[in-house]
């Protein structure tokens, strides 16, 4: 049915998952940094974080991805070349897989920033005061009291973000990363059966989404145990 392209689609699937997981991890790290900067930062770090989320929210992912992939190497190249005459032949080309991971991570770090910011603000102040009253401070306070609650508040936003990042990896095909979408595209071109292969790709994406949703449900039940919402 798939004209022997099954194994290649599977390979594409692993690349898709690789891009998604990599980008998601980068987004989480950027999100924590961004949220901290927005809430606790000085004027400069706060400004940088605000500018970051402002710009990312206003520009389509496709343009941002192309900017990162085409424009940033060109920019660095011209800066290096003009810095000294011995570098006139300097060339920089980003490897597609890495640039896709970095670019998508950078883009969705902005959403993660907002998720974490909201979650941190949602922790009832009384909880932290109670912890302090019991003599908790620093790491103990963060790990034992703040973090579990923060994750609970952040959970729905973070699971949404995972589903969004997962679907956004299809964009990586635009910069020639050989992931699911690109494999489907190649197979479609070679066999003249575009519908078959794009449908196959769509089904695989749907399956990953469905599996993710089931996992998210389990994590939700686990993290809401012992709360009113968990009892329902």
């Amino acid at each position, binding site marked *: 049915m798939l004209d022997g392209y099954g194994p290649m689609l599977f390979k594409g699937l692993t690349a898709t998952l690789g891009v998604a997981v990599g980008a998601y991890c980068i987004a989480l790290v950027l999100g924590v940094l961004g949220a901290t900067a927005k809430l606790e930062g000085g004027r400069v770090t706060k400004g940088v974080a605000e500018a970051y989320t402002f*710009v990312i*929210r*206003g*520009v*389509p*992912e*496709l*343009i*941002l991805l*192309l*900017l990162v992939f*085409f*424009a940033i190497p*060109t*920019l660095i190249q011209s800066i290096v070349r003009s810095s000294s005459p011995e570098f006139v032949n300097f060339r920089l080309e980003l490897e597609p897989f890495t640039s896709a991971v970095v670019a998508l991570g950078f883009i969705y770090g902005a959403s993660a920033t907002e998720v974490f910011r909201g979650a941190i603000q949602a922790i009832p102040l009384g909880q932290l005061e109670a912890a302090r009253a019991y003599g908790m401070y620093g790491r103990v306070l963060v790990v034992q009291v703040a973090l579990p609650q923060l994750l609970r508040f952040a959970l729905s936003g973070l699971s949404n973000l995972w*589903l969004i990042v997962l*679907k*956004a*990896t*299809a*964009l990586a*095909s*635009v910069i020639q990363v050989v992931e699911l*979408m690109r494999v*489907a*595209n190649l197979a*479609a071109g070679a066999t*003249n*059966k*575009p*519908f*078959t292969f*794009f*449908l196959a*790709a*769509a089904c695989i*994406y*749907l399956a990953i*989404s*469905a599996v993710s949703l089931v996992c998210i449900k389990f994590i939700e039940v686990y993290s809401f145990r012992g709360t009113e919402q968990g009892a329902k």
Partner: protein
Amino acid sequence: MNFGPVIDGLSVLLQGLAVTLVLTVSTLLFGLLIAVPLAVARWRGPKWLSSLIWCFTFCVRGTPLLVQLFLVYYGSGQFRDELEAIGLWWFFREPWNCALLTFTLSTAAYTTELLRGALMAVSNSQLEAGFAYGFTGLQKLRFIVLPQAFAYALPTYSNDIIFHLQATSFASLITIEDLAGVASVMANKTYLHYEFYLTAAAMYLVVVYSVLFALKRIEKSLRRFLNPG
């Protein structure tokens, strides 16, 4: 950096922007027209209908828009003979129609689920009051439930509007000359990637924040009833 060619190409870029806006507005409008009945059916419709609509929204929301777009545009080519036989080939031959169809179905799916959530948030006593005043089902929907549901849904719907505005940039990948399309054609022609993508990004930025500003104003007036006085 060399912004000279960008300034020369500004009129073309603006034409691209117009294409982007037309595509966005028409998909949102058609999407909303489809979403309202679907959401109502999902809310109070029979179980089988509700499940059927859920299947549609799940499939659309669970797969990347890019895959859907390619499935419709390139995929329809595989059934060219059949489509010609039933006289539909002219529709799928045009990238514009394919983009319009895909984006419309996508906004319809997202908006359906959104509106269903908002419909469920409208309190039952509102419906009972409508019943007491002798409203028919359709009148209750038109004058009581839907206006409130829209007010509840608008903040999230604003996000969806922005998402779909930005998603129209995918149309450039099936040869439509929207803003992203024009920018990438010019960038490849002049080798000025940085300049053209940056200009396009700035134009998107302005449009997105103007739309957000307008939506905030509408939100304020729609939600007046929630905090009167």
